[in-house]
């Protein structure tokens, strides 16, 4: 069965500092990994995805994520956080054997001025 874990309910970071939001996964076969962001009272928006190829994936708004197969992780990163990055972030995984995209429980990112 597929599963995704986001071990931190909340991450706090000062504006201008680098940020990391953690995600680990479990799937059978090759993983297809996604990050989404949700602003208050809005639907989720796609940030980036890893399908194959380079382990470092670049996405929207300056975010990037690193796929680590040995650690089964897909952590979201940004070199310099902005207050406007404050939102709820979801990691999701799908295997090649299924149509279902399974989400983690989300991590709230709070960036302080």
């Amino acid at each position, binding site marked *: 069965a597929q599963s995704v874990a986001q071990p931190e309910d909340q991450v706090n970071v000062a504006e201008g500092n680098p940020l990391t939001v953690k995600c680990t996964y479990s799937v059978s076969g090759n993983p297809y990994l996604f990050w989404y962001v949700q602003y208050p009272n*809005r*639907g989720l928006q796609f940030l980036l995805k890893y399908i194959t190829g380079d382990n470092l994936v670049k996405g929207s708004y300056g975010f990037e994520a690193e796929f680590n197969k040995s650690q089964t992780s897909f952590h979201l990163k940004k070199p310099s956080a902005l207050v406007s990055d404050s939102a709820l972030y979801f990691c999701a995984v799908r295997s090649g054997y299924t149509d279902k995209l399974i989400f983690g429980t989300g991590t709230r990112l709070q960036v302080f001025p």
Partner: protein
Amino acid sequence: DAGITQSPRYKITETGRQVTLMCHQTWSHSYMFWYRQDLGHGLRLIYYSAAADITDKGEVPDGYVVSRSKTENFPLTLESATRSQTSVYFCASSEDRVIGELFFGEGSRLTVL
């Protein structure tokens, strides 16, 4: 405007009543999904559809019914609402089974009294 729209955005109903949440997309995406979002659980898949007249259960299908007579519409029905179905419901669509990202609607907030 093109996109994915959900209606109603807000609904209050009573236990035992039937409720239908509507979802309409203008992209002609093959895949459509219904998720519910609850604190502490993140997003959980209720039902999904790979094409018109093809639907399948997700993680939490009990108490819900879906149909997909047309590619662009994917209504979700609660046949006899219960308080545990109080939640925010998100519809999403995707053009690809495995590698495509999901495009989400703005959500429908349902309260069952």
